[in-house]
């Protein structure tokens, strides 16, 4: 089979961050295949694809498309060669309709007047051709994420794409949407003859959908394999460079006293609408309660309200048996709370300052680090050193900078700072988002250890695997409410998936796309 894409000896060095993002990478994709490109964060897979799409100029190397040597210096060149890319963050206009988005920039018109009927027809034809049904008149901003992604794919296909790059397409989807996407990808490849490059770091998806897989590590191509000849442990080993434990071994939970109770709390989002409605939860010491849900269903607001950085409109919160509903962050921390926030770059860390000042946060007034109002810099440095040693932070040293660390090592600093004072309640919001396999394993192990030492953990995550492997109990959040709460022994991914999409376990047809996008007026009245 001929090669649709061949990249030879691609190198790219970023002088601003001193990273060799690509180091003489050879990469080829056969015509019509689904080729998975996997690797940890920072392995260079996005850089490689951005070079192919003309967004980044390589330092050296050669690109061949259908065996013709080409120069790609701008996305226009790539589009001209039939290369399309669907980015992780969609490039759609939310206030435009599906048809307007798909035809953006090439609207059918007569003397400058738009021909909307024709536009809708064109989109319908396109959707039919590729078997990707959409409602051309729907507003993109009102569609669920999976549908928006479909619009993005159609928009790309509309430009006569033959080679389709999907950049971590499943990161934002529900399990059902992931399944739909997998079908679509397979169909595009087998029926339409599209060549598809599928960037991911979820190895299950590779096995499910790809024909071949290329693994990258530290900017180098570690190897390309037929998916039929490989398995997940082997790919993980190639990615990380060592064996990886997938399921953290854990003992059964030994739940103790209640360390956290939320009673009918209602929390407003930034625009004033209730994001969390009459929600009740409780966590005992020595157990992990997982909150599953598609991102944007009130998790952020819930976590911030618990952490004390967002006001609670009504209801009560107790930590360690004491009411802290209106209490300050300081008061909550005094009652044993630790908080691993979702946004480690802006909330978990201060990248403008050094590591010591990052680990000092919330301890600056403790006698241990403070004498007569003056910070004991040496003690802080010692503490930073302890965190670096105990949590195995690579490339860091006391007084050093944090903004040059990888995401995984940044998160180790956050986790280290938060868990160093032996908290009895840990709020972990998306603690492994965007991390590589090795760091995920580390964070998981650390959380389990904290649990075994008697901490109660509230784990908020959109990753079902994470919820399934860590939790002792699972609750599903949908539009700010808990739709169901289970012991881990009675949970299946199926069940969670249905609830995450807003369905009901009694009604087998619910939880599909239709239900998940029910218009706002059919929602429970939460005024």
């Amino acid at each position, binding site marked *: 089979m001929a090669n649709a894409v061949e990249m030879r000896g691609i190198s790219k060095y970023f002088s601003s961050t001193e990273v060799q993002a690509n180091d003489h990478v050879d990469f080829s994709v056969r015509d019509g295949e689904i080729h998975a490109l996997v690797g940890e964060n920072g392995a260079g897979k996005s850089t490689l694809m951005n070079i192919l799409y003309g967004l980044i100029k390589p330092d050296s190397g050669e690109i061949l498309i259908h065996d013709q040597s080409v120069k790609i210096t701008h996305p226009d060149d790539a589009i001209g060669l039939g290369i399309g890319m669907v980015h992780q963050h969609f490039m759609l206009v939310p206030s435009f309709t599906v048809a307007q988005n798909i035809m953006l920039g090439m609207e059918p018109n007569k003397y400058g007047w738009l021909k909307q009927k024709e536009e809708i027809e064109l989109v319908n034809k396109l959707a039919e051709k590729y078997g990707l049904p959409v409602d051309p008149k729907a507003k993109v901003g009102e569609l669920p994420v999976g549908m928006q992604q479909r619009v993005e794919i159609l928009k790309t296909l509309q430009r006569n794409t033959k080679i389709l790059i999907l950049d971590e397409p499943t990161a934002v989807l529900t399990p059902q949407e992931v399944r739909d996407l997998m079908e679509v990808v397979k169909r595009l490849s087998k029926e339409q003859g599209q060549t598809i490059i599928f960037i991911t770091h979820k190895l299950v998806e590779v096995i499910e959908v790809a024909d071949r897989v290329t693994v990258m590590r530290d900017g180098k191509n570690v190897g390309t394999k037929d998916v039929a000849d490989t398995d997940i442990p082997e790919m993980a080993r190639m990615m990380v460079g060592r064996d990886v434990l997938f399921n953290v071994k854990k003992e059964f939970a030994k739940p103790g006293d209640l360390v956290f109770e939320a009673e009918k709390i209602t929390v407003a989002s930034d625009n004033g609408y209730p994001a969390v409605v009459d929600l009740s939860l409780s966590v005992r010491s020595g157990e992990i309660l997982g909150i599953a849900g598609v991102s944007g269903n009130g998790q952020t607001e819930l976590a911030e309200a618990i952490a004390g950085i967002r006001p609670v409109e009504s209801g009560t919160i107790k930590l360690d048996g004491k009411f802290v509903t209106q209490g300050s962050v300081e008061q909550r921390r005094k009652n044993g709370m630790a908080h691993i926030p979702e946004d480690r770059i802006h909330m978990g860390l201060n990248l403008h300052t050094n590591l010591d000042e990052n680990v000092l946060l919330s301890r*600056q007034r403790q006698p241990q680090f403070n004498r007569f109002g003056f910070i004991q810099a040496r003690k802080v440095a010692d503490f930073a050193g302890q965190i670096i040693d105990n949590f195995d932070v690579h490339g860091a040293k006391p007084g050093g900078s944090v903004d040059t660390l990888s995401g995984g090592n940044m998160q180790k600093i956050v986790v280290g700072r938060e868990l160093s004072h032996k908290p009895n309640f840990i709020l972990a919001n998306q603690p492994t988002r965007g991390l590589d396999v090795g760091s995920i394993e580390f964070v998981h192990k650390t959380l389990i250890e904290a649990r075994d030492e008697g901490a109660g953990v509230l784990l908020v995550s959109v990753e079902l695997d994470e919820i399934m492997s860590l939790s002792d109990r699972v609750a599903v959040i949908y539009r700010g409410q808990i739709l169901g709460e289970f012991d881990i022994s009675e949970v299946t991914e199926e069940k969670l998936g249905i609830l995450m999409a807003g369905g009901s376990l009694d009604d087998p047809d619910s939880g599909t796309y239709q239900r998940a996008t029910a218009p706002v007026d059919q929602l429970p009245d939460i005024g």
Partner: protein
Amino acid sequence: MDKAKREKFYNTLIVPVLAIAAGLIVAAILVLSTGNNPLDTFRVLINSGFSCESINRCTFISTLERSTPLILTGLSALVAFRTGVFSLGQEGQMMLGAVMAAWLGYQLHLPNVIHPIVVIIAAVVVGGLYGFIPGLLKVKLGVNELISTIMLNEIAILCLEWAVNFPLRADAGSAAHSHTIQPTAVLPAFLPGSRWGVGFVIAILMAVAIYFLLWKTSLGYEQRMSGNAPRFAKYGGIKNEKAALRGMIISGALAGLAGAIEVLGVNRRIMTGYSVGLGFDGLSVAILGQTHPLGVVIVAILFAGVRLGAQLGLQIQLRIPRELGGVIIAFIILFVATDKLFLNVITWIRAKLAKQPKNQPVEEGSD
């Protein structure tokens, strides 16, 4: 890591140096257009601002005297910026401090050392309160401090004009001015015939104090975290609103102090048109000084020297308008504001230099 730190250090150092060089080049072109030799002109300027032949013929001492209010207003702006409030209120706070100093300096009758201390405390309190107003407006009502401080500047300047013309007016002479302060209130100078004295020492002590406050105490830690990473601060339990208020008050107090020292140490009274922009200059000093106390002191002295040199050297000796000094400073500020440009130039040169060893067969340290 070390490399990154070193790079950062170079960037903080190289950018102002390049900016000053670029400012001087543009100024040289302007000098050429007046028909003078730029090199001679700069020599005269430096001689008149930074020379010290003997204790009696030492222009640098005058420069230090003139840098005193700039150091203080620079520190005032620094505290605000480091705390995350963009206060432009230094001018107004300084004017109210000056009014307090002129009034109490004349009105009170106190012993020698006590008198200036009392006056300074009063001016500091007034400046701090005048900073507290926009701070409160920001925290409680969300009023943008950029706008409120500019408006409050106008109010303060007009208050000063009113005070000079009515309650504090000394005589019915042509230019309105206040009474000269009591001799007991005067801040002493070090040398006869100069007004460089205790005020400068206070300013330097303030720079040291601000450094320790911001970088060595838990309060300063909270202020800075709130300033450059408000979400991080909030997450860690630091109250951003309180930090902003504190920042505004300390900033205002420093500007009020500047006004008091200017009156007690140099002018000894206030007159109509007293607002000449020393407060606004504090903003430029703080930014040019990389919002660091040491940088503020250096830049304040530089500013004062260039101004003095332009006045004494250019205007009197060469008959070039002294505004040229202002023009040079303005260009330097402009070039500092375009620091991205210089950073790009540095990165570009680095990249060029880095490329050369790559042609050699051995490639090193690239992972």
